[in-house]
């Protein structure tokens, strides 16, 4: 005992000594025949599951490109850092990718918070940035490309469906942060556009597990439908308690987030049946690209992989969009790639036609309205080529190329 204790103490001290030594010099990781890309997702912590999926689809995209001869004659090399759902670490890795690894492009950031931490750093050190997560909209920055959906693309269809099919009275439950706040403003606007009204809005911190008081308030308000804009571990507890109180038989539910945390896998089908969602991507999309993609993906990552949502697909499509721009520009140089993207690029992707909007640096794409049945989203309706009209209302990078901020878009 004594011996092991002493040796442990020694090794502990030794570890600390090595740790305290100044960092070794590391030169840029790029070799001449390589283009380096950074994957900066949260692979641990709160966003771990979705981060891993996004990193996997990114890996698949890069491997496919490399297998088919690479990009402008070079192989893509990926450096992967785990943001640990920690903003300070996000900032450090953004600095590392830009300054030490000197990467051609950074893909990553899941929460809006980590994006807003990394975006200024990547601007400052002139490193191209792709943000692949659905978000509240409004980012206007020539160095940044947002390749997933914003509320005007998906939430508009969702709320319009709710008002038309279920009734005019809605109730909002949202996560208490930027995305939840702004999205619920959009929900209100879209409901009003359809002649509906919102009877109540509640915001929740991420760790709330008891929805008892909320259920009582919802019942007192008696809406036709509830829309959930919840993230984290919270949604599961809500759907479960909502069903346990028997409310899912009386009040319809639609969601801007359901499924991206694989909630349907844990809930029973009686708890999740009837929930309506609207996304750019879900595995049930029926087209040749998607069938091929799923085949390759499962071959690479196994058949037991949980169903992919819009987020990992955005990573995949984002890499493909960037690669197409590099091909078009004939170079991975930042400004050339930006100009290529601004010139407009359109791809056939698993989610359908996927096109870069050069004015806003956002994408025009198909969105699909679906209802969960037996844990699978059954597509009800597809809306082709939805433009990012929310961001377009405030952002014009062709006119104002030096604009650099996230607008809070005035709703109403």
């Amino acid at each position, binding site marked *: 005992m004594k011996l092991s*204790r002493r040796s*442990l*103490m020694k090794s*502990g*001290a030794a570890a*600390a000594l090595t*740790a*305290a030594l*100044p*960092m070794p*010099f590391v030169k840029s990781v790029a070799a001449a025949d390589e283009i380096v890309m950074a994957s900066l997702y949260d*692979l*641990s*912590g709160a966003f771990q599951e979705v981060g891993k999926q996004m990193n996997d689809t990114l890996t698949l995209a890069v491997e496919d490109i490399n297998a088919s001869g690479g990009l402008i004659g070079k192989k893509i090399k990926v450096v*992967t*850092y*785990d*943001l*640990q759902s*920690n*903003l*300070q*670490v996000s*900032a*450090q*890795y953004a*600095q*590392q990718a830009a*300054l*030490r690894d000197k990467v051609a492009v950074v893909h990553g950031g899941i*929460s*809006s*918070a980590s994006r*807003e*931490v990394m*975006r*200024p*750093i990547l601007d400052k050190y002139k490193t191209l940035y792709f943000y692949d997560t659905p978000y509240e909209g409004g980012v206007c920055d020539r160095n940044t490309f947002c390749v997933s959906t914003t509320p005007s693309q998906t939430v508009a269809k969702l709320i319009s469906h709710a008002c038309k099919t279920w009734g005019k009275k809605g109730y909002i439950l949202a996560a*208490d*942060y*930027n995305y*939840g*706040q702004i999205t619920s403003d959009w929900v209100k606007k879209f409901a009003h556009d359809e002649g509906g009204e919102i009877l109540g809005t509640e*915001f929740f*911190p*991420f760790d709330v597990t008891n929805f008892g008081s909320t259920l009582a308030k919802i019942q007192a308000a008696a809406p036709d439908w509830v829309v959930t804009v919840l993230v984290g571990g919270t949604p599961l507890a809500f759907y479960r308690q909502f069903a346990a109180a028997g409310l899912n038989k009386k009040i319809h539910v639609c969601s801007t987030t359901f499924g991206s945390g694989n909630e349907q896998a844990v809930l029973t089908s009686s708890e999740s049946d009837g929930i309506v969602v609207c996304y750019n991507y879900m595995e049930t999309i029926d087209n040749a690209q998607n069938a091929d993609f799923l085949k390759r993906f499962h071959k690479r990552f196994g058949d037991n992989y949980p169903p992919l949502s819009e987020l990992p697909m955005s990573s995949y499509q984002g890499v493909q969009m960037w690669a197409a721009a590099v091909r078009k520009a004939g170079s991975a140089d930042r400004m050339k790639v930006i100009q290529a993207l601004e010139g407009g690029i359109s791809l056939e992707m698993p989610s359908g036609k996927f096109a870069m909007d050069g004015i806003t640096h956002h994408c025009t794409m198909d969105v699909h309205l679906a209802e969960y049945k037996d844990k699978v989203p059954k597509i009800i309706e597809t809306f082709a080529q939805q433009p990012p009209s929310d961001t377009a209302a405030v952002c014009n990078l062709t006119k104002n190329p030096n604009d650099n*901020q*996230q607008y*809070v878009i005035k709703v109403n």
Partner: protein
Amino acid sequence: MKIAGIRLDLIVPGVCGLALLFGLPIFLDLFSLLQVTLYAIMAILALSLAFIWGYGGILCLGHSAFFGLGAYAYAIAVINIGESTAPFLIAILVPTLAAAAVGYFMFYGRISDVYVGVMTLTLALILFNVVNSTSGAQYHIGKAPIGGYNGLPNVPGLNVPFDPDNSLDPGDMYYLCMGLLIVVYFGLRWLLTTRFGRVAVAIRENEKRVEFIGYDSRLHKLATFTIGGGLAGLAGCLFVNWGAYVSPTTFSMMQSAQVIIWVLVGGVGTLFGPMIGAVALSWLTVEVGSQQLIDANLLFGAILLVFVLLVPRGIMPVLIDRVWGRISLPRRPVFTAPPVAAREGKR
């Protein structure tokens, strides 16, 4: 530690500090310099807790409260004012006043040690909860939205005092943070040689006796706690300048836990050790994220456990023992709380 009449304990860190301050910018690339700047900031944060916990004997489980207050105070002030001289001072003043108020509430209420820990933890939890739920547009102070979970991105950095057009570049920031670290370290060293500092340490050893001698232990604890709070606020202010953002995670339990781990690993009752702990473990956090083998929580949990059980004195005292041997045995840090029974004998 005197050899041939020379105060090695002052000269060694002094020379090291100056060498780092002026040497590193020559040898390091921009990225490494940014990292070292961050480590210097974290070392200041570690010193603030090392002082109140290691020397004052006050267990502050919610130290992130003051770190976060400094960070938010700077961000909100600078967004409203624009020129950064006043915001810098406000960022130190706000957490100092907060620490003074909380300290008055606790120490003049004669709340026992463990409950002081609970109180500070609760304070940090309240701040975290409140700030975390202010994402709505209705929550703003002047021009600055508080931002809830996302916090405030794009916070303007420091400028040369009273010259708003002349903002500090990463090199300047490095000199500022490293310089302040050296000042804080030697400042605390000096403070501990004064009567106030010695009485603060004596309170850690035996509060009752200090009272019997005729010193007001409440006042001394309050002052110790306030100084620590202010320094944590300074670190928070610098942190915002480093990352140009502030978020509620600056108030989080994890942030408090980190500081405690740094101090514990480095050595409670030393100043140098916690700085080493802060640098080593911050570096380790980044290294962990470059590989996907070990979960960060797993690693830090294991480190904390191992140190509490096997190296409760921390690295620094153990190292000093090895280097200087038994002759110049430094004071053993009194970290061990007396048994419960003895504590509850107090009124």
